[in-house]
């Protein structure tokens, strides 16, 4: 079968997939009854509803022609994700100076137009701003330097 509306089809797959996962994870949650709704009651209803909607949307994607999915550009996607992940794994132990520098230097590479000198300048400026405003100004309880 040929995919006519890939955007609808992809959306349907995402919705149905998440719904199926929730129904699977919640398979043993106590249901209770209408008078005493258990913790599994509402999620079950919602999960079924989402599964139905996902299948409907996915089926529409098979049947109804629609625009194709825009091409994914790997560079910005991957570099931005890596940059954020680096921030997350470094901030607790290595502190905000290293975490922010890593975030900014890596995400700066996501745009092909950035030149190295500009990259360092932007990083330095924003790092100074972070320290001045968040750490010394608002006194947010961040670790500043490595342990």
């Amino acid at each position, binding site marked *: 079968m040929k995919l006519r509306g890939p*955007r*609808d089809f*992809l*959306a349907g797959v*995402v*919705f149905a997939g*998440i*719904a199926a996962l*929730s129904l699977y*994870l919640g398979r043993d*949650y*106590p249901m209770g*009854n*209408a*008078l*005493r*709704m*258990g*913790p*599994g009651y*509402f*999620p079950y209803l*919602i*999960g079924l*509803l*989402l599964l139905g*909607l996902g299948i409907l*949307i996915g089926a*529409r994607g098979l049947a109804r022609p629609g625009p194709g*999915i*825009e091409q*994914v*550009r790997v560079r*910005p996607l991957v570099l*931005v*994700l890596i*940059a*954020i*992940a680096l*921030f*997350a*794994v470094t*901030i*607790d132990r290595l502190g905000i100076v290293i975490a922010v520098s890593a*975030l*900014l230097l890596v*995400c*700066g590479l996501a*745009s*092909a*137009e*950035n030149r190295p000198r500009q990259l360092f300048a*932007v990083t330095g400026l*924003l790092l100074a701003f*972070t320290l001045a405003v*968040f750490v010394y100004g*608002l006194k*947010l*309880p*961040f670790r500043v330097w490595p342990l």
Partner: protein
Amino acid sequence: MTELLDQLALGFGVALSLKNLAYCFTGVLLGTLIGVLPGLGPLATIAMLLPVTYALPPESALIMLAGIYYGAQYGGSTTAILVNLPGEASSVVTCLDGHAMARQGRAGPALAIAAIGSFIAGSIATLMLASLAPPLASIAFSFGPADYFSLMTLGLLAAVVLARGSLLKAVAMVVLGLLLGMVGSDVSTGFFRFTLSIPALGDGIDFVVVAMGLFGFAEVIANLERRQGITAMTIAAVGRLLPTAADWRAAAGAVLRGTGIGALLGLLPGGGATLGSFAAYSVEKKLSREPSRFGHGAIEGVAAPESANNAGSQTSFIPMLTLGLPSNAVMALMIGAMTIHGITPGPQVMTERPELFWGMVASMWVGNLFLVVLNLPLIGIWVRLLSVPYRFLYPAILLFCCIGVYSVENSSVDVLLALGFGVLGYLFIKCDCEPAPLLLGFVLGPMMEENLRRALVLSKGDPAVFVNQPISATLLAMTVVLLLIVVFPSMRKVREQAFRE
């Protein structure tokens, strides 16, 4: 009437304190800033700044956050007029005639009318908010759990109908939001749901995490894909600011009509600022004796939508403050902000925290005054800001998002979760799913479950309670009618056409 005056006096007492004036000013300044910059919206900004407001008293926090929202409507018009790019979604129609005026060398009058029209609209909408909210809140007090459940159902469906794009996908997004709202310990039994044995998920997913992922991270990635190669924009010269007498005559009616339409549509779920501006523009075009002037620099085409979006952004606070029901994603964030400060949104806010409610209302008028001053004499500064390229901007956006998410609970797991939502949001952008309905469902999910549970306990498990009680039955009937209208093909065409214009 005297009561209203007393309450407004109380409100101005709060809003005019030096500290709150400063927060109001900061809010509208930031609002203008992000309004001017394309690619950064009020949603992401409010979510980024939420953690910063933890330390503030609740009224100051809300005054500032509200300022960001309506301030963005002013800033959005500047970009629309000068560079033909909508700074905000609500300024899309302003581009048509605003930029046409700019090309004719009349950018100044267009900017002035946009700012003055917004100010008049803001003042009228603030008065509306002050006079409409108390009676609405007193009605809301008589609502039982079944009524609330039906109200939320209606609200969510209406929000979806008025949203742009595919209806079915928007419904699915709402339902997915409801499901995500279930993560964490169940309110009444303490049972852990969908936590995947991750301790950080025990308290549920913080909505800052969801908002940042969907609106911060995902938007940046999508913008980076689209903007490769776009460099310098051509910025029109501002020129003389003051509109001519003929401009005033042409714009006066449009400002008032735009205010009315915007204020009314702002009240509806899913309304807010954007819908009003579209509707106001098409009404002006229909009413005009020479509709052909529209699109070629008709000043009414700037005055009406700009008044409407500002009026709408203010009246959309009414359902949130009186019913605890967010009519759009920004209001959902405001509810989150109130919850963080230990305030349960709903009709009791007005009686239990009058200084908060009236302080916020009064601050909106003050904020509008600030905005006129900020936007007209200082226009040159904003113009210069427009020339900052996106490649310098997005690292700052990512940085503030990361710090914002992390500072909620100093949890690096939250940052990783937000990253996950960023990927999800990116997927949704790729398949044309609007993320805003998801956030609405996410905020309303736990409330809906609680009200459903309570309603069924009160009725001893009989689901007929939703149709037996008059308020609930009326609301559900409205939901069904709305559903039928939507499913009916001819109505669907009208909706699609309305959004195309």
